[in-house]
Protein backbone atom coordinates (compact mmCIF):
# COMPACT_ATOMS: atom_id res chain seq x y z
CA UNK A 1 0.00 0.00 0.00
CA UNK A 2 1.75 3.07 -1.25
CA UNK A 3 1.30 6.48 0.29
CA UNK A 4 3.54 8.97 -1.47
CA UNK A 5 6.42 8.72 -3.91
CA UNK A 6 9.87 8.96 -2.39
CA UNK A 7 10.62 12.05 -4.44
CA UNK A 8 7.84 13.97 -2.72
CA UNK A 9 9.19 13.04 0.70
CA UNK A 10 12.66 14.19 -0.36
CA UNK A 11 11.29 17.44 -1.79
CA UNK A 12 9.49 18.04 1.50
CA UNK A 13 12.72 17.47 3.39
CA UNK A 14 14.62 19.80 1.03
CA UNK A 15 11.99 22.51 1.45
CA UNK A 16 12.19 22.35 5.24
CA UNK A 17 15.98 22.39 5.09
CA UNK A 18 16.07 25.44 2.82
CA UNK A 19 13.60 27.29 5.04
CA UNK A 20 15.81 26.60 8.03
CA UNK A 21 18.95 27.62 6.15
CA UNK A 22 17.47 30.89 4.96
CA UNK A 23 16.39 31.54 8.54
CA UNK A 24 19.94 31.00 9.81
CA UNK A 25 21.31 33.34 7.15
CA UNK A 26 18.69 36.07 7.44
CA UNK A 27 17.95 36.31 11.15
CA UNK A 28 20.25 38.22 13.46
CA UNK A 29 18.80 37.05 16.74
CA UNK A 30 20.82 34.10 17.97
CA UNK A 31 17.78 32.46 19.53
CA UNK A 32 16.06 32.41 16.14
CA UNK A 33 19.17 30.99 14.55
CA UNK A 34 19.05 28.11 17.04
CA UNK A 35 15.39 27.50 16.20
CA UNK A 36 16.19 27.43 12.49
CA UNK A 37 18.99 24.95 13.18
CA UNK A 38 16.34 22.77 14.81
CA UNK A 39 14.24 23.01 11.65
CA UNK A 40 17.24 21.95 9.55
CA UNK A 41 18.02 18.94 11.75
CA UNK A 42 14.36 18.01 11.61
CA UNK A 43 14.41 18.11 7.81
CA UNK A 44 17.33 15.69 7.78
CA UNK A 45 15.29 13.42 10.05
CA UNK A 46 12.42 13.48 7.56
CA UNK A 47 14.75 12.36 4.78
CA UNK A 48 16.11 9.50 6.91
CA UNK A 49 12.69 8.30 7.99
CA UNK A 50 11.36 8.42 4.43
CA UNK A 51 14.30 6.48 3.05
CA UNK A 52 14.09 3.95 5.87
CA UNK A 53 10.45 3.43 5.07
CA UNK A 54 11.01 2.95 1.34
CA UNK A 55 13.66 0.29 1.81
CA UNK A 56 11.97 -1.17 4.89
CA UNK A 57 15.04 -0.87 7.06
CA UNK A 58 15.08 0.24 10.67
CA UNK A 59 18.38 2.07 10.13
CA UNK A 60 16.57 5.24 9.17
CA UNK A 61 14.89 5.48 12.54
CA UNK A 62 18.19 4.78 14.29
CA UNK A 63 19.80 7.65 12.42
CA UNK A 64 16.87 9.80 13.48
CA UNK A 65 17.43 8.87 17.13
CA UNK A 66 21.09 9.83 16.81
CA UNK A 67 20.11 13.16 15.23
CA UNK A 68 17.73 13.66 18.16
CA UNK A 69 20.51 13.24 20.71
CA UNK A 70 22.69 15.59 18.68
CA UNK A 71 19.93 18.21 18.65
CA UNK A 72 19.42 17.89 22.40
CA UNK A 73 23.11 18.36 23.18
CA UNK A 74 23.38 21.22 20.69
CA UNK A 75 20.43 23.08 22.18
CA UNK A 76 21.74 22.62 25.73
CA UNK A 77 25.17 24.05 24.88
CA UNK A 78 23.76 26.72 22.59
CA UNK A 79 21.25 28.04 25.10
CA UNK A 80 23.88 28.08 27.86
CA UNK A 81 26.13 30.15 25.58
CA UNK A 82 23.20 32.43 24.82
CA UNK A 83 22.66 32.98 28.53
CA UNK A 84 26.27 34.08 28.86
CA UNK A 85 25.86 36.33 25.84
CA UNK A 86 22.77 37.93 27.33
CA UNK A 87 24.64 38.54 30.60
CA UNK A 88 27.55 40.17 28.90
CA UNK A 89 25.92 42.32 26.21
CA UNK A 90 22.24 42.39 27.28
CA UNK A 91 21.53 41.57 23.66
CA UNK A 92 21.26 38.52 21.47
CA UNK A 93 22.39 40.16 18.25
CA UNK A 94 24.91 37.94 16.51
CA UNK A 95 26.83 41.01 15.30
CA UNK A 96 27.91 41.67 18.88
CA UNK A 97 30.17 38.64 18.58
CA UNK A 98 32.28 40.23 15.87
CA UNK A 99 34.50 42.19 18.23
CA UNK A 100 37.45 39.95 17.49
CA UNK A 101 38.07 41.84 14.27
CA UNK A 102 38.26 45.21 15.95
Amino acid at each position, binding site marked *: *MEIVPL*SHVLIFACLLFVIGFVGVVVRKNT*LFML*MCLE*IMLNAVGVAF*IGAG*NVWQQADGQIMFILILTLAAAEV*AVGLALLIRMQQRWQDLNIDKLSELKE
Partner: protein
Amino acid sequence: MQALLSLSTLFYLAAFVAVYASLRVVLQNNTVHALLYLVVSLLAVAVCFYLLGAPFAAGLEVIVYAGAILVLFVFAIMMFGLREDETRIAPKAGQVRYWLMPSLLALVLFIEMIYVITLEESKLSATATTIASKEVGALLYGPYLLAVELASFLLLAGLVAGYHFAKSFAGGGR
Protein backbone atom coordinates in the same frame (compact mmCIF):
# COMPACT_ATOMS: atom_id res chain seq x y z
CA MET B 1 -8.86 2.25 -1.79
CA GLN B 2 -10.62 5.03 0.01
CA ALA B 3 -8.29 4.69 2.98
CA LEU B 4 -5.24 4.84 0.68
CA LEU B 5 -6.36 8.14 -0.78
CA SER B 6 -6.97 9.67 2.59
CA LEU B 7 -3.55 8.54 3.88
CA SER B 8 -1.66 10.36 1.15
CA THR B 9 -3.91 13.38 1.55
CA LEU B 10 -3.12 13.37 5.26
CA PHE B 11 0.58 13.28 4.49
CA TYR B 12 0.42 16.23 2.11
CA LEU B 13 -1.71 18.18 4.56
CA ALA B 14 0.73 17.58 7.42
CA ALA B 15 3.65 18.46 5.17
CA PHE B 16 1.96 21.71 4.18
CA VAL B 17 1.33 22.57 7.83
CA ALA B 18 4.97 21.85 8.66
CA VAL B 19 6.31 24.01 5.84
CA TYR B 20 3.93 26.87 6.59
CA ALA B 21 4.69 26.82 10.33
CA SER B 22 8.44 26.76 9.61
CA LEU B 23 8.03 29.76 7.32
CA ARG B 24 6.22 31.57 10.09
CA VAL B 25 9.07 30.75 12.48
CA VAL B 26 11.50 32.45 10.12
CA LEU B 27 9.27 35.46 9.46
CA GLN B 28 7.94 35.94 12.97
CA ASN B 29 8.86 38.96 15.05
CA ASN B 30 7.65 37.81 18.44
CA THR B 31 9.86 35.22 20.12
CA VAL B 32 7.15 33.29 21.94
CA HIS B 33 4.91 33.21 18.86
CA ALA B 34 7.80 31.83 16.83
CA LEU B 35 8.31 29.17 19.48
CA LEU B 36 4.66 28.16 19.26
CA TYR B 37 4.92 27.92 15.48
CA LEU B 38 8.00 25.75 15.94
CA VAL B 39 5.96 23.42 18.16
CA VAL B 40 3.27 23.20 15.47
CA SER B 41 5.90 22.46 12.85
CA LEU B 42 7.45 19.67 14.93
CA LEU B 43 4.04 18.12 15.65
CA ALA B 44 3.19 18.16 11.94
CA VAL B 45 6.48 16.44 11.16
CA ALA B 46 5.60 13.87 13.84
CA VAL B 47 2.33 13.19 11.99
CA CYS B 48 4.36 12.67 8.81
CA PHE B 49 6.59 10.18 10.63
CA TYR B 50 3.54 8.30 11.85
CA LEU B 51 2.10 8.13 8.36
CA LEU B 52 5.46 6.94 7.04
CA GLY B 53 5.25 3.91 9.31
CA ALA B 54 7.60 5.07 12.06
CA PRO B 55 5.44 5.36 15.19
CA PHE B 56 8.48 5.10 17.47
CA ALA B 57 10.16 8.05 15.79
CA ALA B 58 6.89 9.98 15.89
CA GLY B 59 6.60 9.44 19.64
CA LEU B 60 10.22 10.47 20.15
CA GLU B 61 9.64 13.57 18.05
CA VAL B 62 6.72 14.62 20.23
CA ILE B 63 8.34 13.74 23.54
CA VAL B 64 11.90 14.91 22.98
CA TYR B 65 11.61 17.66 20.35
CA ALA B 66 8.22 19.21 21.05
CA GLY B 67 8.49 18.38 24.74
CA ALA B 68 11.98 18.60 26.16
CA ILE B 69 13.86 20.81 23.71
CA LEU B 70 11.05 23.34 23.40
CA VAL B 71 10.72 23.51 27.19
CA LEU B 72 14.43 24.28 27.23
CA PHE B 73 13.78 27.14 24.81
CA VAL B 74 10.95 28.42 27.00
CA PHE B 75 13.21 28.35 30.06
CA ALA B 76 15.87 30.27 28.18
CA ILE B 77 13.35 32.90 27.07
CA MET B 78 12.21 33.22 30.67
CA MET B 79 15.80 33.78 31.81
CA PHE B 80 16.43 36.32 29.07
CA GLY B 81 13.33 38.22 30.13
CA LEU B 82 12.89 39.58 26.64
CA ARG B 83 11.24 42.84 27.53
CA GLU B 84 11.39 44.39 24.15
CA ASP B 85 10.93 42.05 21.26
CA GLU B 86 14.46 42.54 20.18
CA THR B 87 13.92 40.36 17.19
CA ARG B 88 14.80 42.10 14.04
CA ILE B 89 14.61 40.50 10.69
CA ALA B 90 17.81 41.37 8.94
CA PRO B 91 16.44 42.84 5.70
CA LYS B 92 17.01 46.46 6.42
CA ALA B 93 17.65 48.55 3.38
CA GLY B 94 21.43 48.54 3.45
CA GLN B 95 21.90 45.01 4.65
CA VAL B 96 20.12 43.13 1.92
CA ARG B 97 23.32 42.59 0.00
CA TYR B 98 24.79 40.57 2.85
CA TRP B 99 22.31 37.76 2.70
CA LEU B 100 20.85 38.10 -0.79
CA MET B 101 23.73 36.40 -2.55
CA PRO B 102 23.96 33.36 -0.22
CA SER B 103 20.20 32.95 -0.43
CA LEU B 104 20.29 33.11 -4.23
CA LEU B 105 23.08 30.53 -4.38
CA ALA B 106 21.16 28.29 -1.98
CA LEU B 107 18.10 28.71 -4.16
CA VAL B 108 20.06 27.59 -7.22
CA LEU B 109 21.26 24.49 -5.37
CA PHE B 110 17.71 23.82 -4.16
CA ILE B 111 16.32 23.99 -7.70
CA GLU B 112 19.09 21.69 -8.90
CA MET B 113 18.26 19.24 -6.12
CA ILE B 114 14.55 19.25 -6.97
CA TYR B 115 15.44 18.75 -10.63
CA VAL B 116 17.67 15.79 -9.88
CA ILE B 117 15.09 14.22 -7.57
CA THR B 118 12.30 14.50 -10.10
CA LEU B 119 14.49 13.71 -13.10
CA GLU B 120 14.39 9.96 -13.07
CA GLU B 121 10.93 8.52 -12.81
CA SER B 122 11.86 6.12 -10.08
CA LYS B 123 9.17 3.75 -8.97
CA LEU B 124 10.26 3.95 -5.35
CA SER B 125 7.45 4.92 -3.11
CA ALA B 126 6.78 5.08 0.60
CA THR B 127 4.45 2.41 1.87
CA ALA B 128 2.20 2.20 4.90
CA THR B 129 4.17 -0.71 6.33
CA THR B 130 5.14 -0.08 9.91
CA ILE B 131 8.67 -0.69 11.14
CA ALA B 132 8.08 -1.87 14.69
CA SER B 133 9.96 -0.33 17.56
CA LYS B 134 11.11 -3.83 18.53
CA GLU B 135 13.09 -4.02 15.32
CA VAL B 136 14.59 -0.59 15.97
CA GLY B 137 15.57 -1.56 19.51
CA ALA B 138 17.16 -4.82 18.43
CA LEU B 139 19.23 -3.00 15.82
CA LEU B 140 20.06 -0.17 18.22
CA TYR B 141 21.60 -2.50 20.79
CA GLY B 142 23.11 -4.82 18.23
CA PRO B 143 25.22 -3.38 15.42
CA TYR B 144 24.76 0.22 16.56
CA LEU B 145 25.91 -0.27 20.15
CA LEU B 146 29.03 1.81 19.62
CA ALA B 147 26.96 4.67 18.19
CA VAL B 148 24.71 4.53 21.25
CA GLU B 149 27.73 4.78 23.51
CA LEU B 150 29.06 7.73 21.53
CA ALA B 151 25.66 9.40 21.76
CA SER B 152 25.71 8.97 25.51
CA PHE B 153 29.15 10.59 25.61
CA LEU B 154 27.78 13.45 23.51
CA LEU B 155 24.89 13.96 25.90
CA LEU B 156 27.26 13.89 28.87
CA ALA B 157 29.44 16.49 27.18
CA GLY B 158 26.38 18.62 26.52
CA LEU B 159 25.34 18.34 30.15
CA VAL B 160 28.78 19.32 31.43
CA ALA B 161 29.09 22.21 28.98
CA GLY B 162 25.63 23.50 29.76
CA TYR B 163 26.31 23.36 33.47
CA HIS B 164 29.68 25.01 33.09
CA PHE B 165 28.49 27.88 30.91
CA ALA B 166 25.31 28.64 32.80
CA LYS B 167 26.79 28.10 36.28
CA SER B 168 28.25 31.51 36.88
CA PHE B 169 24.82 32.98 36.40
CA ALA B 170 24.09 32.09 40.03
CA GLY B 171 27.58 31.54 41.43
CA GLY B 172 28.98 34.87 40.38
CA GLY B 173 32.41 33.51 39.36
CA ARG B 174 33.25 34.54 35.85
